[in-house]
């Protein structure tokens, strides 16, 4: 018929094909990040020093983990704007318990995972079984969680956080062959979710739900349970991100921790090629998106440019990415 197959964009894997391993948008992101790194390396030779790279990879870990969760959610055509608040509660809990409760760091992180999962599950419960729009319910729970967080801070900066926690930190204790363990955790999560989304029924069902929820239900997908699960997993990932954040070695923690994380995560997701309307997207893209946002931020600092420029670039990336998505959809519709 009139439609020509876009052969070049498909990769055949053992006689079958899924969406390509690396999409066009992801390639563009890789090229952009690489170009920025070259630019920064030229303008500042110190940029490619082991220490600088280690610190960058370490800083990528928390936002990357949260962005993976956000991507899973947005693929199902949902959204979670409470991740920043979850991060704050988890981080504050770890800080308080290790600084004042004398808990060992690992135990506090474990609790953070439980807390994050519980908060994510609460979101999921309302959204899937309560059938409340995700943007509203997570807006509500965000404020709820923030209240809990402020109670933990008790209007004070938490001080005297011990530093034995550095296995998740950027320093030598938190490295394997010079690679930050936190970054390896991110890579492990990325590989797991990437594979899960492509090769597991549950993963494919996320796309189906985001595409057409009622059709998915008719096809026999347990839509509510899948949606519940996706928010729960995101909560878990945020709890992990909180562990890494505190693992960074700061002795003091104030109430601004995590602020703006939800927007960063959504930005990374959208820049990474995930459609905000659901049904399409990849976790690799979102981690690359996070890396790009972060590279831009450190680049602006390194080049001693006004820091607002970073916002300008990120804003432009988002608009371009969303525009590309809308155009793609519009073209597709016109063909049919």
């Amino acid at each position: 018929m009139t439609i020509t197959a876009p052969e070049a964009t498909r990769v055949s894997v053992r006689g079958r094909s899924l969406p390509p391993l690396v999409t066009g948008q992801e390639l563009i992101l890789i090229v952009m990040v690489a170009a920025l790194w070259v630019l920064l390396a030229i303008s500042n030779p110190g940029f490619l020093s082991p220490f600088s790279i280690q610190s960058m990879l370490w800083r990528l870990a928390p936002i990357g983990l949260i962005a993976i969760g956000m991507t899973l959610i947005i693929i199902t055509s949902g959204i979670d704007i409470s991740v920043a608040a979850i991060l704050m509660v988890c981080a504050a809990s770890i800080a308080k318990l290790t600084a004042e409760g004398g808990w060992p760091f690992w135990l506090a992180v474990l609790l953070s995972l439980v807390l994050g999962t519980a908060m994510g599950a609460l979101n999921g419960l309302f959204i899937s079984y309560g059938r409340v729009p995700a943007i509203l319910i997570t807006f509500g729970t965000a404020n709820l969680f923030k209240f809990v967080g402020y109670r933990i801070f008790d209007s004070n900066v938490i001080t005297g956080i011990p530093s034995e926690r550095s296995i998740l930190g950027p320093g030598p204790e938190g490295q394997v062959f010079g690679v930050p363990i936190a970054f390896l955790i991110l890579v492990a999560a990325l590989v797991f979710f990437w594979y899960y989304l492509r090769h597991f029924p549950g993963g494919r069902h996320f796309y189906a739900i985001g595409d057409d929820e009622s059709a998915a239900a008719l096809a026999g997908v347990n839509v509510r349970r899948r949606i519940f699960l996706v928010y729960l997993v995101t909560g878990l990932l945020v709890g992990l991100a909180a562990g890494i954040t505190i693992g960074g070695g700061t002795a003091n923690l104030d109430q601004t921790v995590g602020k703006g994380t939800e927007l960063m995560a959504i930005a990374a997701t959208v820049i990474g090629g995930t459609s905000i309307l659901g049904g399409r997207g990849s976790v690799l893209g979102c981690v690359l998106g996070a890396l790009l946002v972060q590279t831009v931020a450190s680049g602006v600092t390194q080049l001693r440019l006004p820091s607002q420029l970073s916002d300008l670039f990120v804003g432009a990336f988002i608009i371009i990415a969303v525009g590309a998505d809308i155009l793609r959809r519009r073209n597709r519709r016109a063909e049919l």
Partner: protein
Amino acid sequence: MPSNLFEQRAITTQTRLSLTGISKRFGGVQAIRMAEFHLLPGEVHALVGENGAGKSTLIKIISGAETADTGEITIDGEAADIRNAADALNLGVATVYQEAQLFAQLTVAENIFLGRELTKGQRIDWVSQDKLVREALATVGLKDDCMHRKVEELPTGQQQQVSIAKALVGEARVLILDEPSAILTDTEIDNLFAAIRNLTARGVSVIYISHRLDELAKVADVVTIMRDGVTLGTFPVKNLTIAQIAERMVGGRLEQLVSTHSFVTDDIVLAASGLHSGKFHDVDLEIHGGEIVVLYGLVGSGMAEIASAMYGKEPITRGSLHLKGEPYNPTSPTVAKDRGVSMLPANRKLEGMFSFQSIAFNISVGALNLMKKWGAVFDKRKEGLAADELIRKLSIKTPDQTRAISTLSGGNAQKVVLARQLVKRPDVLVLAEPTHGVDIGAKEEIHRIIADLCREGTAVLIATSDLAEALRVADRLIVVRNGTCFAEFGPEATQTQVLAAASGELTEADRLELGEVQ
């Protein structure tokens, strides 16, 4: 007509699917009454009837989307208890709905197995799945090179075939096709028929629902006709002409319903010549003041788009339009409204109602510029007066105008949406499916309101797929087929003539002949 034409088919004990004494009531409406339906192995069994005759309800009962109040279903001689869609699937009854239930972003192979993936360990077993997908695609006549493409990349016809392939994976004994051809091109329809023959050769029984009666002779063995919730019987297709089937469907009850008064004036209000768009072509149309012109056609014929084009909702690519002698270029509804053209949209809930708002709001919202005081400020009092007047004039049944429109019955809500178009009497009123989903009483009143407007000189264009309505109100009835005006009838047209023209029994040659007669 000789009665032996309607000799019913003998029912053997070897039925694949049998429905006996099926009844279903929705609230106060008896949707079907004591329906009988017997399907033999390997046959294509057409199910026809007008909108509201009970076809969809019957299909929903078979496919598990609804449960019958009374009656029995047996499949291959065994009593079947179908309570939900999963039960039906397990019994080998697969349904392809008119709207393809596919996921645009996933591949064909994935779509076919979605929700029941084959797994090895926890992982999807792509290799085994692909093998079965190839077989299913071959059965419906699709080449397997499409299996790894995203569904959104396929033409509509192939998507329909994918839906059928999806229904076939997993040993379907009965396949229900709900108006599969409504959105297909001719070639695609031929492919579909080939696929159906392929299936019946393997012993699958097919229930085929269609409004295009001309298709029946090509694809179906037998036809069951429904009218007013009752199955009238099952007949071999080759014994009947389209006209005879159509007569049975409508039951002769329309013959007496002919438009009784006419207010047609001599001046041409709206004139179109050579109009083209993506959905129709070569449309010539003239509507006089006080005249009711009805466009009648099947779903997908283009009649809805022709009507929308007059109101600026469908972009016109070529041709010219004149409104009261002046050139008229409706690029948007705003332009149309300014020139005195109004439109009642087809989908009341989506395009017509502001559900949470009051009746008064719903009436005034289209004409707020007429309800100002001090030159700029919205005047609630004027809104109230206008709303009250129209509520009275259109006899909208409500205690007061502040009620939310969503509290009204379908017919009354429709009258409110219609009232919005009448705050200021339009020169041209376009109505799309004006009485769809309203009760008989409200239908009568809406027709009366339209007649009143004509008396005052408004030119009316109605697009409808309700034949009874078309015959009843039309001063002139234009049958739209394949995107253009196919035939034109005066008020004395009969249902069989019109139905034959719309559904394809009349050929190009008949059409010319018809033109000479008039």
